[in-house]
């Protein structure tokens, strides 16, 4: 039995009168791929934001490796080894791809002195290898903002890998990507989990993707946890079908 990496207990978050998350509890186990699904506006991204420290939560507890992190801020949590990617895809758009990668190395142990040194050559090599891994090697010297949307998503994913996080929260990794590229991305996400040993927690609307990848799936609706289970259990859960999947 692998240990629990993220433990969310009774987390609530409201924006004014809108209750975005109400008493949500879930856990992500080390070395697994966990899915988070639900209709638009069901509070998935809010929950992600709460976990990575983007905003304070109204109540409940969030633990990462048994450490309470609900009071910590984004950069501190990132340095603990938990990263997220963004739904809107965020990269450093005026820098070239290699630089995007190089500045994404882990800042966990960066000393004050290291801030004022150059990156060692291994960092550039690693950046180039990871760019090759996501298929952007040829474009590595181009300004990243000039890449297509799908390529930017791949770059953002590679940047996250560069950081060597223990857990990676992906917010809709396949949104806006064409079907061929999606297959490649699924393959790479899987390899991130197996080859790099990164625990993945994924928000995804593409059911084909998430049902194939995740071992454990949580479904949110109207800010509440609706169901939890294996892909099979979720697909056959009547309340999930009613709220989200729709009847066939």
């Amino acid at each position: 039995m692998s240990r629990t990496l993220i433990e969310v207990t009774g987390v609530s978050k409201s924006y004014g009168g809108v209750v975005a998350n109400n008493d949500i509890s879930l856990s992500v186990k080390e070395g697994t791929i966990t899915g988070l699904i639900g209709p638009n506006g069901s509070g998935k991204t809010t929950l992600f934001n709460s976990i990575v420290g983007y905003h304070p939560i109204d109540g409940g507890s969030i633990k990462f490796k048994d450490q309470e992190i609900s009071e910590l801020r984004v950069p501190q949590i990132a340095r603990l080894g938990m990263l997220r990617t963004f739904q809107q895809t965020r990269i450093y758009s005026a820098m070239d791809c290699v630089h995007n990668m190089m500045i994404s190395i882990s800042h966990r142990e960066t000393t004050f002195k290291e801030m004022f040194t150059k990156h060692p050559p291994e960092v550039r090599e690693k950046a180039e290898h990871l760019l090759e891994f996501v298929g952007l090697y040829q474009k590595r010297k181009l300004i990243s903002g000039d890449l297509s949307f799908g390529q930017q998503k791949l770059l953002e994913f590679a940047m996250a890998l560069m950081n060597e996080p223990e857990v990676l929260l992906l917010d809709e990794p396949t949104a806006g990507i064409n079907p061929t590229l999606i297959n490649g991305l699924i393959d790479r996400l899987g390899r991130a989990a197996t080859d790099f040993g990164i625990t993945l927690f994924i928000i995804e609307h593409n059911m084909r993707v998430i049902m194939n990848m995740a071992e454990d799936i949580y479904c949110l609706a109207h800010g509440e946890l609706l169901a939890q289970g294996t892909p099979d259990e979720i697909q056959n859960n009547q309340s999930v079908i009613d709220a989200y999947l729709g009847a066939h």
Partner: protein
Amino acid sequence: MTFSKKETLLCLSVLVFGVAGPLLFPNYTFQIAVLWMMVVFAQTWDTLGGQMGYNSLGNIFFFGAGMYICSVIQISLYYDICTYTAHSGAVKVDFTPYQYFSGLAVGLLAAGAFSIVFAIIFGWAMFGLRGPYFAIGTLGVALAAGEVIGAWDCIGGGGGISLPPYPGEPDTRSYFFAILMFILAVITFTFLKWLYSTRFGLAINAIRDDESKAEAMGIQTKLHKMLAWASSAVPLAIAGGIFGNMTGFIEPLEVAFPTVTFGIFMVVMVLLGGKGTLWGPILGAVTFHVVKELTWTYLLGLQWVALGAFIVILVVFFQQGLVGWMQDKWPERFGITVDERMSVEEKEAAS
């Protein structure tokens, strides 16, 4: 730090001009000194505005603060500053060459050191602001500083301070300050070229492109921002100290904290040359200074109108600046190319 062949050539010709320029054109020594000051202005403004994406309208604060700190210290070392300013002009003060130069050296170093403290204090307060709010907030700091100094009678108030006279010939005096400004510009350039080549440089670029993303990746954004401001504050403060001594008389509004002239020129020069590039600000400063001097010479009376029109044309038609325009036109010269090789192995096999 590495220099390409072209850069080496460029640096050498700048060095030759810096040393020989004032000797070849003795009538323009003051203008040449101001030119180097403009180069320092543009380079340091670009650290925040271009490299880090924080458009400050208040960088002139460090210039004025440095000017006053340097002046007050170099006088206080040998005289009581309150008596000195109260009798300014009426009492003959004599500084021996030793007193003059030691005072100047201590004053300039102190100006640099204090500016770091100021950058940290104001950085703490200002870096919660982003975009136009940061610009206005910093402008407020510079304006307020001018008013505070103006109300501070002991250091001359609105009447200003006459600085100790230079112990030497007028010609050596102007050459001395031109060289001092030139050395400052060269050190600033070398320092920034090095700084931009380190992780620190990449990190502030990341903050410019997407600060939330940089935070989410674990970069210590606040620390980087304050250090970046401090790096641009030090040369500015020293430039202020030199400029105060060069003009010989300082006062708060027109000389020390001129927000609408030098404060805006900093921004215009960087926009003209190209934001976020190493050579852009220098190119911008030189072009701007030449254009400005030409309009002051040949369009006297209309010089501000001409300068205003120049700025408008610049921001409407030429937003990326000279170097930015070149980068768009010849991307491959800046290394922005597609590599046809598919993989790291192919590259290694080829080399």
